[in-house]
């Protein structure tokens, strides 16, 4: 592969991809030149696949064939568009018509009315893209996309992740060519350092510095690793990048290899992500066959190749030393640092390990320069961050925003607010290692440092929105259950500490806690933060500490008033019949599994609190909303 060949492939394919980026009128002209009148992009990410995009795709192919359109319409299965709650998603270019929640039946109409006859099927479009006067607005103008800035996700939902030519068409492998043919390894590291890029896996360590340490370590064998063991429950950014744009990770790892002097790379990826694993393997095979991996890449004399290793379901393997121990074939237990991986990492050799999203920024920085990158975001956190927005929010999905965007913009504008008229209570970031940001800090700009200041952390990018129906003690307990399960057991502060914390929380949620327990939590947490071997144990108390800090009154309500204000903790729930509303229909009494409800026909019933097992059957059965829980 030479630069000339690369540019030739780019020219051959770029029009096809440009149709998806240009405004409709020009797009139509361009579309004609590509030989395809229209293009249909169907999301093949995990979210949309789960909601049935495979069936939609099959129906589309069949319907196109039935209508004799298969030669004029190009069908592309892409990665994630981001709006997962509206899947399966389908978009038709050059119009940019965005069909949400597509069904096989709907597809038949779209093929006939839109693709064949040229009339957009407006009632099947995503409603936000249809103006009140019936005109169609482009997807980038909708609330969900307007404030987003897609760098790491730039190709997700745009290109076919299983076709390397489409990646080349959007400047793919230009950065590797530039680095190998015009830059020294030091130039590459300096550019990355100047960009201020910080690790997107959560820690926020400067990537350029990490690379320079690994370069400075002298050894014949070095390794480049990619951490795709995305374990934070509720986070799926890395998966979406690997599913939507796997080539960009391969290119970035090769650049990292060149910078530090490594010739071998490993991608450690969760086995729970079958689609991502499959697409990455296809991408590696294609890159190899075209000479972007292998010997003497771009005639530079630089050799590099990549191997996939599957994780086996251990959260701790997201920690860098544990991840390397796992690749070595052992129990994924962390090792003490120092020595740091840049000195002694995988198989005892100097190793650079970066997260998927970090790598997804590399090629763009090399191509466009560090100044371009620092022009986005904040001075200490340049660039963008991808968040997996989930929980009690209207637009569940993947969003990429410039650092410094406020939580309010994310929730109210991009996320479309809280459903069912409920009130926003807190946003949880950083998963089991992070904390929550309460409603009073909703105007906080999101970057590494302000999140730490609030007692949370960036984490890998899971952002779970909680509404007034969420009990903060229960949420803390949920995360502690997680860390108890996932603590590897190697060091005592984490192994025993997490368990003790959980026991105390369990007591509190059952109404048996004391005020001294709160002091005990704080003391134990301090010891765990100081003495645990790895970040898992050091950060495990964060979900409790941060909820105790912002929602102490809820803890006190559980302890002193024996009530759960959000009516979540079962042991503290109390079901009561409002006698004014009760018609005496006896339905509740007949359905109560504990025979705890008594009363005569047509007279108000009463729940015997000693017998009640708090199952909620009475409330679900009541037709008069006469039963309340508090």
């Amino acid at each position, binding site marked *: 592969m030479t630069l000339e060949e690369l540019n030739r492939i780019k020219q051959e394919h770029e029009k096809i991809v440009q149709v998806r980026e240009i405004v409709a009128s020009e797009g139509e002209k361009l579309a004609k030149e590509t030989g395809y009148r229209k293009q249909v992009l169907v999301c093949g990410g995990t979210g949309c696949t789960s*909601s049935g995009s495979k069936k939609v795709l099959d129906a589309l192919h069949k319907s196109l064939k039935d209508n004799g359109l298969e030669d004029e319409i190009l069908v592309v299965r892409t990665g994630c568009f981001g709006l997962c709650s509206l899947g399966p998603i389908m978009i038709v270019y050059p119009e940019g018509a965005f069909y949400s929640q597509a069904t096989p039946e709907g597809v038949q109409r779209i093929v006939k009315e839109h693709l064949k006859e040229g009339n957009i099927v407006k009632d099947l479009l995503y409603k936000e893209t249809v103006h009140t006067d019936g005109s169609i607005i482009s997807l980038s103008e909708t609330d969900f996309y307007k404030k987003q800035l897609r760098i790491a996700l730039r190709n997700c939902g745009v290109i076919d992740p299983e076709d390397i030519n489409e990646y080349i068409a959007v400047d793919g492998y230009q950065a590797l060519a530039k680095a190998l043919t015009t830059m020294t390894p030091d130039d590459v590291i300096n550019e990355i350092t100047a960009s201020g890029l910080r690790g997107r896996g959560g820690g926020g360590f400067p990537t350029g510095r990490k690379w320079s340490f690994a370069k400075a370590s002298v050894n014949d064998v070095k390794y480049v690793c990619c951490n795709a063991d995305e374990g934070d429950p509720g986070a799926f950014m890395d998966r979406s990048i690997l599913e939507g744009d796997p080539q960009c990770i391969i290119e970035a790892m090769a650049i990292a290899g060149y910078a530090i002097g490594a010739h071998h790379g490993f991608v450690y990826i969760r086995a729970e992500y079958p689609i991502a694993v499959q697409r990455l393997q296809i991408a590696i095979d294609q890159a190899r066959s075209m000479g972007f991996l292998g010997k003497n890449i771009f005639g530079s004399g630089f050799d590099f190749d990549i191997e996939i290793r599957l994780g086996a379901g251990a959260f701790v393997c997201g920690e860098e030393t544990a991840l390397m121990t796992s690749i070595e074939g052992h129990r994924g237990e962390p090792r003490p640092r120092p020595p740091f991986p840049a000195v002694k990492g995988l198989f005892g050799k100097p190793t650079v390990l970066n997260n998927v999203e970090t790598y997804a920024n590399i090629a763009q920085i090399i191509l466009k320069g560090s100044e371009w990158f620092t022009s986005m975001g904040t001075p200490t956190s340049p660039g963008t961050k991808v968040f997996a927005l989930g929980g009690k929010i209207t637009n569940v999905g993947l969003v990429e925003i410039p650092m410094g965007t406020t939580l309010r913009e994310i929730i109210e504008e991009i996320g479309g607010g809280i459903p069912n008229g409920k009130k926003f209570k807190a946003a949880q970031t950083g998963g089991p290692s992070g904390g929550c940001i309460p409603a009073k800090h909703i105007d906080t700009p999101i970057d590494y440092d302000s999140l730490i200041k609030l007692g949370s952390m960036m984490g890998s990018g899971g952002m779970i929105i909680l509404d007034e129906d969420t009990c903060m003690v229960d949420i803390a307990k949920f995360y502690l259950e997680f860390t108890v399960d996932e603590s590897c057991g190697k060091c005592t502060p984490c192994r025993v500490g997490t368990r003790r914390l959980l026991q105390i929380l369990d007591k509190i949620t059952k109404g048996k806690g004391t005020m001294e327990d709160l002091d005990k939590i704080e003391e134990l947490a301090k010891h765990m933060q100081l003495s645990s071997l790895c970040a898992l144990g050091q950060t495990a108390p964060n979900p409790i500490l941060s909820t105790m800090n912002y929602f102490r009154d809820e803890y006190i309500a559980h302890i002193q008033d024996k009530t759960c204000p959000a009516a979540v903790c079962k042991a503290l729930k109390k079901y009561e019949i409002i006698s004014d509303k009760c018609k005496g229909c006896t339905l509740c009494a007949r359905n109560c599994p504990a025979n705890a409800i008594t009363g005569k026909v047509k007279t108000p019933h009463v729940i015997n609190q000693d017998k009640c097992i708090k199952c909620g059957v009475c409330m679900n059965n009541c037709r008069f909303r006469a039963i309340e829980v508090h």
Partner: protein
Amino acid sequence: MSEKTLFAFKSTSAQDEKLKEVIAKYKDVPGALLPVLQEAQGIFGYLPIEVQQSVADGLGISLSEVYGVATFYSQFSLTPKGEHRISVCLGTACYVKGADKILAELEKKLGITSGECTPDGMFSIDSCRCVGACGLAPVMMIDDEVYGKLTPDQVGKIIDSYIEKGGKSV
């Protein structure tokens, strides 16, 4: 050994042959144990002690090392799984949308708890942490099929549809 298998383990010669091939393929690869166990579980459905012993012998490492790895990672199971493997996502996004109620309903319906298998071997329930389909929370998977935006009252019907297909009763 604390993890007892419910049924006596019996392998076919085709399975044994396949395992031998896998071991031969990875024998000289550094860090071979994980991929070998992953493929072994693919062949046998789980990792009974007999299979662990074969892996240990084949790779020239101790059984205790194999057992240590097999029990460390949640992907590996030392007990057989049901014909239909149900996993309920208890990731954060699903949890705040009531995944615990889905799990409770399943356990009630099948009469087993998470981690167990029905006596007829038809269903097993496990909880898992995030399948990444957070847009559809709460979610459960039965084999490779994802069921999203679930409510507890849908659970029974879904299970019944598998029973009808399988023709066995729970």
